[in-house]
């Protein structure tokens, strides 16, 4: 291995560049945090103040006492939908990947090819008819309606298939010789063996669902069912000159996903290596 020499000047320029970049990345977050602790009187000042002179919880108090909709309720909705859609995505993808890798049938290769082909069609093309289908099924404005399309998850199947291809068949076969059923092999042997990819996919699915906006916005119309992202976007139109309320809402929306990220950074990073999270 070649160690790069790191002369003093080069090191200085390097640290200057990376610190500057980190600062630019953090500024909007810091601005959000700082603004969220201001009040209607202090939110608009020239020159700007990073540390509010009179820190105020007004923004946070008003977020939890919104007119017409409940932020707490929306948090629950978001959490519930994220957990459910994650479960649906991961389970259906793992089960299908198990069939494609370990239980091939006549034509299964073609079916998988079809899965891959659908990945090239942008989600926008299917958005309009999916809405019509939900309407036909009478599932508009239901949680089920938001969750169901997550069963169609070609990328997840692809990801899990890649991981299951590496499993050693003889290990699974010997378990079956010992009398284990296919269900048992799947749940007790296969899933634990692909745990790294599985946990990465759980994370990606959870973040994707928690952060999703468009689909819940379209499907859910009653205010008590809406998700955090939808509520936050709605607040944006209603509190035009009370930015501290919106910023408090933004802080509370980001916080849970930030916690998840901090607790699992390695898994998220390996998810990017797998080409996920988008």
């Amino acid at each position, binding site marked *: 291995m070649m160690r790069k020499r790191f002369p003093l000047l080069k090191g200085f320029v390097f640290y200057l560049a990376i610190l500057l970049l980190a600062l630019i990345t953090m500024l909007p977050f810091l601005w959000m945090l700082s603004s969220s602790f201001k009040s209607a009187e202090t939110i608009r000042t020239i020159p700007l103040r990073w540390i509010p002179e009179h820190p105020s919880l007004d923004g946070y108090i008003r977020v939890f006492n919104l007119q017409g909709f409940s932020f707490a309720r929306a948090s629950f909705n978001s959490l519930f939908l994220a957990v459910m859609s994650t479960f649906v995505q991961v389970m259906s993808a793992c089960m299908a990947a198990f069939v494609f890798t370990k239980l091939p*049938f006549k034509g299964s290769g073609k079916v998988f090819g079809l899965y891959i082909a659908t990945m090239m069609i942008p989600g*926008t093309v299917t*958005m*309009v008819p999916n809405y019509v289908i939900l309407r036909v099924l009478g599932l508009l404005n239901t949680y089920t309606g938001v969750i169901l399309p997550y069963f*169609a998850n070609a990328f997840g199947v692809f990801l899990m298939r890649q991981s299951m291809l590496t499993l050693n068949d003889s290990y699974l076969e010997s378990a079956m010789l010992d009398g284990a059923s296919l*269900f048992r092999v799947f749940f007790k042997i296969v899933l634990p063996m692909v745990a790294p990819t599985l946990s990465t996919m759980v994370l990606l699915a959870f973040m994707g669902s928690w952060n999703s906006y468009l689909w819940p916005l379209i499907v859910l119309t009653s205010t008590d069912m809406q998700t955090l992202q939808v509520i936050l976007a709605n607040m944006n139109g209603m509190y035009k000159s009370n930015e501290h309320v919106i910023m408090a809402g933004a802080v509370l929306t980001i916080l849970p996903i930030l916690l998840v990220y901090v607790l699992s*950074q390695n898994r998220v990073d390996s998810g990017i290596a797998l080409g996920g999270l988008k």
Partner: protein
Amino acid sequence: MYVPKTIGRRVTTAVFLAPSLLGMVVFCLIPIVSTLVFSLLDYDLLAGTASFVGLDNFVRILTGREFPAVVTHTLTYLGLYLPLIMIMSLGQGLLLNHPFPGRQVFRAIFYLPVITSWVAAAVVWQWVLSGKYGLLNQMLQSIGIQGPGWLSNKDWAMPGVVLAAIWKDTGYYALMILAALKSIDPTYYEAASIDGAGPLRRFFGITLPLISPTLFLLVVINVIYGLQVFESVLIMTNGGPGDATTVFLERIFKYAFRQYKMGVASAYSWILFVFILLFTLVQFRLQKKWVNYDA
């Protein structure tokens, strides 16, 4: 894996495949076929009426006054976004490739905007870009520059959206570039150093060619996603001011879910799909000129 072809195997196969396959058929394959059908209909979802109009939807969109503006705005976004995101993520990837203490912390910081939802990012950036009291203009003011009204200004609204998008996406693509940089065999650099190649020479002679497949992938992905720019626009400008930031998806969304004209919306999404396809095909044609697959 050898599993005897028993009834049990068939049942298991069916049970395991059914959720995913049914989902794919109902929410992916049927929709793809039905948008094709919808695009030939004058389909009003609210009134519940649908009548066959042939290619009318396409003709009306393509010859309408709105379409050139939508194409221009979408391409303006792409034209600003693509070079910036490539330069920024390449720069960030190169910085992160240096071994230095605290690298994990910087990686985490750069990744924060990526895990932030677009709604949160958009409302924060709206406030950052706010004309008089916004962070950016106040910072510009302090160095003597009078910033524009950004999102409320016809000419600066789209650049404002692009700024937010660059901030949000750089960390993601930088990690992909970092992965490519890490896979370069260090002996290349050793050999080049021995031959007396300077840092610039090494960058253009070794680094860039060797990560060009990844760069190509990023350009392709970014064009595909860039043509589908949406949530940022919807929340930050809602297509305005006036019609200054109308883009493909914003139009599709408004036709489908504000006016319930499913036929027009479907036709629009197929036009977008053809656009994406053309752009992608052209890039695959052009890649021979700059992408290096030899290493």
